[in-house]
């Protein structure tokens, strides 16, 4: 039985990949890191949906909108990078279970004590910090060698850094330069990337 992920026809020499190899990029490793990164974004989008549903009460309603911004923007990160994954010769796993198992970040489970809003904020913060590490690896690997992957990864990184700042400010009351997005999931940095035609 043929692999349903395999190309049906012959793929000619891809100059865009040849250039990366000449620049010293280990494309297989990059594909693994990118697949792990988009896996983390997709699973985070799923788990943030559950977290947002539990942002209730006076305190919870106060952070619901900011959780929604992060939730939709994380989904946008998945959308922004997946086209690049295919250009690199990679693909999404056929089975979503496998996709979740190889995600670059752990599952952002709803904490047992979710009625304490700080416990939800801590999960959100940890997820954003893991995403920063994950895309940081891609940025470090591609800087000066693969401008296309680097450009998308650094745009994602910028939004992840903003998300981390939001949750740190909510937890610590650190002074904040942040005000609000124009609309939920605005993605000011990645909005023009990938398949985000709906933005």
């Amino acid at each position, binding site marked *: 039985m043929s692999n349903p992920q395999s190309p049906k026809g012959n793929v000619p020499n891809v100059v865009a990949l040849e250039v990366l190899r000449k620049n*010293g990029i280990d494309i297989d*490793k990059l594909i693994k890191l990118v697949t792990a990164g988009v896996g983390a974004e997709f699973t985070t989008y799923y788990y943030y949906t559950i977290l947002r549903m539990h942002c209730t009460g006076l305190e919870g309603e106060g952070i619901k909108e900011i959780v929604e911004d992060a939730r939709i923007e994380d989904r946008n990160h998945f959308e922004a990078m997946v086209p690049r994954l295919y250009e690199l010769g990679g693909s999404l796993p056929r089975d979503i279970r496998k996709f979740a198992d*190889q995600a*670059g970040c*752990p*599952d952002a489970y709803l904490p047992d004590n979710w009625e304490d809003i700080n416990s939800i904020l801590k999960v959100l913060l940890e997820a954003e910090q893991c995403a920063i590490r994950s895309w940081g690896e891609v940025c470090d690997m591609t800087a000066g060698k693969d401008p296309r992957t680097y450009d998308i990864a650094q745009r994602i990184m910028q939004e992840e850094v903003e998300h981390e700042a939001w949750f740190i400010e909510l937890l610590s009351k650190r002074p904040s330069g942040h005000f609000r997005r124009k609309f939920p999931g605005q993605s000011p940095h990645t909005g023009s990337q990938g398949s985000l035609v709906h933005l």
Partner: protein
Amino acid sequence: MSYMPICNSDEIGERSMKMFNVDHTEVLVGRLHGRVFACNNSCPHRGASLVKGELKGDNVVCWMHGYEYDVFTGNLQNMKSWKKENTWMEQSSEWRKSGDLILYPSIEKEGTIYVCL
């Protein structure tokens, strides 16, 4: 087996490590208890760069998820997370899976460190 010179001995101090690119392979070289070790720089769990981590006991601790590997045996020793209070035990067993470090034979001779890939 052929050993390649990687660096001068004095470039790798006690309890330190450094990454070198050898024939498109990232090699992490370090020193613990006066003994040199060499391994692939890629974390067997999710591929993070181990040189960004730290040394703890005989282990290298990955900066991404806190996985710890013995630098002399390559074995996974601990998967305690950066979450401090908890461990990754709450995560699915498939997500937690990791291979062992890829180790490279290394020797130190007359002020030079050699590694065999």
